[in-house]
């Protein structure tokens, strides 16, 4: 159950795409949300991992370790708003949409995901019949007043990245491979099996693409409408689920809110 108050501002569909806009009320629940489950995804359980084992192992390869060590043990990582946006997107999708993100226990949470090629979001969604689908997605955070904001369009924009995720069969299968050791022997395994079967049965078409816009502006359907219509032309059973989230605080403040200091 989401602890914060959400209002659906708009909702529409075209072909294989749906898009919705929802705003979150500025209340204590939101603060609890952002400094609770969202923050958990951003911070390591232990205050700061030292990676001593890794660095000792690296020294055994005969390379110089100092520079790498300096980067990995550096203090004072300044949390970026888009990192918070990404974490929020994960939690919202989990709570609102029943998405499941197999937890990567090895992750160094000070390494931002969005800096890497691939997909921002990797997981499953459960379906009505108890089955599951592969879910992959992109998250963009923007304070841009334009509608849609600049991060939606253009090269490197959300729409383009989603289209790439949709068409790059090799990447999709790579993601399924990557999930394999993470689901093996866990509660996620039945979901994994189901998602792989659906994906292969459909010749690589049955999966869901999430596109999330994390905003601090007033809600407006124009943020997603044009893209939604364009992406909706994709062949079934591939489906797009776009959502824009309008938050009650300026983007720049999110890191402090997550840290519970704002």
């Amino acid at each position: 159950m989401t602890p914060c108050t959400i209002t659906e501002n708009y909702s529409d569909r075209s072909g294989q795409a749906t898009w919705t806009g929802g705003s979150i009320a500025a209340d204590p629940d939101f603060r609890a949300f952002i400094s609770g489950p969202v923050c958990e995804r951003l911070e390591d359980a232990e205050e700061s991992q030292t990676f001593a084992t890794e660095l000792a192992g690296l020294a055994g390869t005969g390379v110089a370790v100092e520079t790498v060590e300096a980067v990995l043990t550096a203090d004072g990582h300044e949390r970026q708003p888009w990192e918070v946006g990404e974490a929020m997107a994960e939690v919202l999708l989990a709570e609102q949409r029943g998405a499941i993100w197999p937890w990567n226990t090895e992750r160094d949470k000070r390494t931002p995901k969005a800096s890497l090629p691939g997909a921002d979001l990797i997981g499953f969604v459960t379906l009505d019949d108890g089955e599951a689908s592969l879910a992959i997605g992109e998250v963009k955070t923007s304070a841009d007043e334009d509608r849609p904001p600049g991060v939606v369009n253009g090269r490197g924009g959300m729409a383009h990245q989603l289209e790439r995720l949709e068409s790059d069969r090799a990447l999709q299968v790579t993601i399924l491979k990557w999930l394999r050791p993470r689901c093996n022997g866990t509660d996620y395994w039945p979901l994994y099996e189901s998602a792989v079967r659906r994906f292969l049965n459909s010749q690589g078409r049955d999966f869901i693409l999430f596109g999330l816009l994390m905003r601090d502006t007033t809600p407006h359907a124009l943020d997603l409408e044009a893209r939604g219509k364009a992406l909706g032309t994709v062949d079934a059973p591939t489906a797009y689920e776009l959502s824009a989230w309008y938050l009650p605080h300026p983007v720049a403040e999110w890191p402090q809110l997550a840290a519970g200091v704002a």
Partner: protein
Amino acid sequence: MTPSWIEAAIPGDASREVVAEATRTRIGEALEVPIETIDHDSVGFVQQAWELALFDALETSDSDPGEIRRLAERAFQLVRVLDAPQEPLPADRFLVKVGCLGLLADRQADAARLLSKHTPYEAGAQDAWGERTQAAIWSAWLRLIRKEGWADLDAIGVLIADLRAAQREFEGDYLEAGAAVARARAWELVALYHVAHAAEILAEFVTTGSSEGHFDVRQQLDGQFDRALTACGRSELVELEVLLRFLRAAANRLVDNSIWTVTRAVNSRVTDFVRSVVDRGRHQPLFEVLPPQRQALREQGLLGSSTRSVVVSLPTSSGKTLIAQFRILQALNQFDREQGWVAYLAPTRALVNQMTRRLREDFAPLGISVERVSPALEVDGLEAALLTERDEDSLFRVLVTTPEKLDLLIRGGWEEEIGRPLTLVVVDEAHNLQQGDRGLRLELLLATINRECRFAQFLLLTPFLDDAEVLSQWLDPSSHDEVRLAVDWVPNDRSIMLSHAHAADGRGAFSIELEALHTTHPTLYSRTPFGLETDRPLGFSWSAVKDSPNKIAAATAELLKDRGSSIILAQRTDYAWGIARTLYEGQGTDVEMSPAVELVRDFLAEEMGETFPLVKYLERGVGVHHSGISEDCRVLIEWLLEKEDITYLAATTTISQGVNFPVASVILASHQYPYGEDIPPQDFWNVAGRTGRIGQGDLGIVALACADDDRAVVLRDFVNRQVAGFDSTLVKMALAARDAISEGDLSRLSYLPAWSGFLQYLAHSYRQIGDPNLFATEVEQVLRGALGYQQLRDREPELAEGLLDAVGVYAEGLAGKPLSLVDATGFSWESVSATLARVGEAGISADSWDGATLFAGASNDLRSLMGLILEVPELRENLDFALGGTKVNGALLAQVTSDWVQGRQLADIAEEYFVRKKKGPPEAAMTECCKVIYGRLAPTVSWGLSALQSLTLGDALEQMSEADAETVRNLPSRVFYGVNSDSAIALRLLGVPRGAAVPLAENLPAAQRGESVARLRSDLTEMAESDWKAAIGEKGGLYRSVWRVLEGERP
């Protein structure tokens, strides 16, 4: 086979279609036929899906290795038709993965070949440090997988060392320049550095058998990969992590395949051998073994066991020789104190020579002396000296020869003369056991050895036997093993095709279409045929080719020439000549000849005469290989083909046995032997196994020329025949001789060569047992020694019982007979006794054996001897030929033999004796001459003379001086080698061509002094070209070069 859950989820139709499409593409590429572009998306999807299934199996702890291999094979076969990415680094990563798939599919040779076509990216100053690191690492791994000699493995060390050297300079900027992504970059570098170190560890292990002084290479690699994967996990490097998981599995497979792993902790000889095969100085160092070798040596424990009787039944080209080499070393080690020796048996002289060369080359660094004795069925003075050598340093430890010669040695008591035990018998091409008279002889030889040689163990090598266990059990029911593959492993892909000719538009025009067939073997098949672009190849017209399989075969070879050399198999020697002629004429002009081709051409002109057509055919890249050219010439032609210096080889099936040929295509003009008998499936697959072999072309093509629809039906059926189970010749013989068996009269069968062999086996056993009563009680045991008798008992118990009784009756007749003569002559007692009677009538005595006069013209004695030889059933059949239309008689045979021994040129002999029709083709007389001289006269007459010596010399040799006795003992060898002096025989034994042996011997002091074979060999090797010229004249250089080729050295 149950598909994995992931495979089951892939729509079957989609994958079938994709596989068909990919197969078609591969065949099309191999044939250089334009193929409609493949649907990369569909192929890519199915490929990815299989890769996912493989990944799942790799990540499952208790996966069946066969399952992993099967899934990898599927993914590999599809990935190889996909295009690599354009960008250099993604292309390298793609190929690393292709390499991993190839390794896991046990297709490392194919993978290495694919990777060799690619030049890894060399990053420069313009590239960011991350890219430079990746470039170095992928380059290192690509080299590790393909291992093109030491250069690749040395390069790995350099690449990683350079990386370390540049690290301090460039890494800092790279990590600072992108502060926002610095952590991600740092983690990626951590992963990559570990993978770099893993490459170093593995490269060191592959070359030295250890890494950093330790032998726990798997643990060392696992450590590096675990840390690399942890780093990937830290920053969710999805693609890198997945690739590294494949790479880790592949690295383990590289360890599995390493020759060091397979041979670890066996014995010091084996370790020394391995050190020598990976040595820097070696032409083609051997770092890894093939999957069948791995399976045989390690997984099936062949090296660790002391099983007495082992059959290795593996496909052609799976590297059985290496398996045999390890077994030989093991046997030598086992009986080192006794200085035991190993007999390596090969069916043909060419194979004996080839194996001697290979074993000698490989074992020389270990100080193991390898010798061969000639296939001549006699032991001349030189061979006797070689066998009884007592000098510790020169003792032969491996003796390479034919089964018949070993039979003669064993029955002649040579194991005792040698004074050291026979510890292992390696039988190459052991499927010959079921082939007619020779098969039975081999079977009985093995039975004799098994019965009489205390320490003897057995290793039988065969390409295709469904019931190999029958053989291994036969030789030792309590200690036997059978090595065969659990899976259909093939060294490389091949496609069996029908070659059809169709009329085309335009006068006389036609096209050739290749149809890939379904077969009993894993071959590439395609629904739609492949049309080859044609423009009346070889100038043929439709009317000329339409009914002629020979011409269709020649045209097909012509159209496939761009992909490499072809062998065109013809049913008969004259057809082979015809095909060679059409190929020669079709070329129009001469081609540029390599020095090797020039050498062979000059030698042919010298040996066979300037007008011998093959001389000019070679000038256009066309060779001929069959029993109608001399053995030396055949070896030289094989050498040219091996070097790919000729494009076409028109041959008969004489070429099929065991010689390692690099041919892209084999084209069968006929699927039958000369007398209309179908080529048995095992022989066909043996030939097919020669195409596109390890390290050679990508896809082997076997095409069967097909002139009409009826033939197509026959040929489709032909390639779908199953290899039959093992049947001893003895069973067939017994079934065909029911009457004689039931009447208890085996004597009357003695004129049949196979029965003669069987009766000799009985006589020999009788002689060994030495007591008629004891023989009577042991007779069943003696019979059971033969596999055929065991099979007969199972299938026809009554007939087997009858045979046992008949043998008892026969044995009674042997009492008191001088049976040593049976063993000495290789004749049945019946033949010995009849010949003894004739010898007296013919007036042959010890005095007849006069080296100075016997071969001088057709002496009376020689004529008489030839007359006697022609009366012996064992010899007669092989001498049943005609000379110039006249059936051969004693006088004629004496004349030809005398000319041959006197050193008369083959061309002259052909001209005088073998011209049948004045207007026949120019090569006809020479072809017949070679067939008769090399295939019949030389081996049979020398055997006959040797046997007659046994019957007539008595103790005369002991009365002679040692030198005279040696001369007399060498007389049969003069016929075998076609020279007229003892010293020339020695050189012939060492492989010197006949034309050079006599003059060279006269000028070689060591030959004149009758030095040992080993000494002579070393003297010969040291002789400079000028020495040869001084002895022979200007041709000396030519002969020296040819000799070096024949002996396996490369001039």
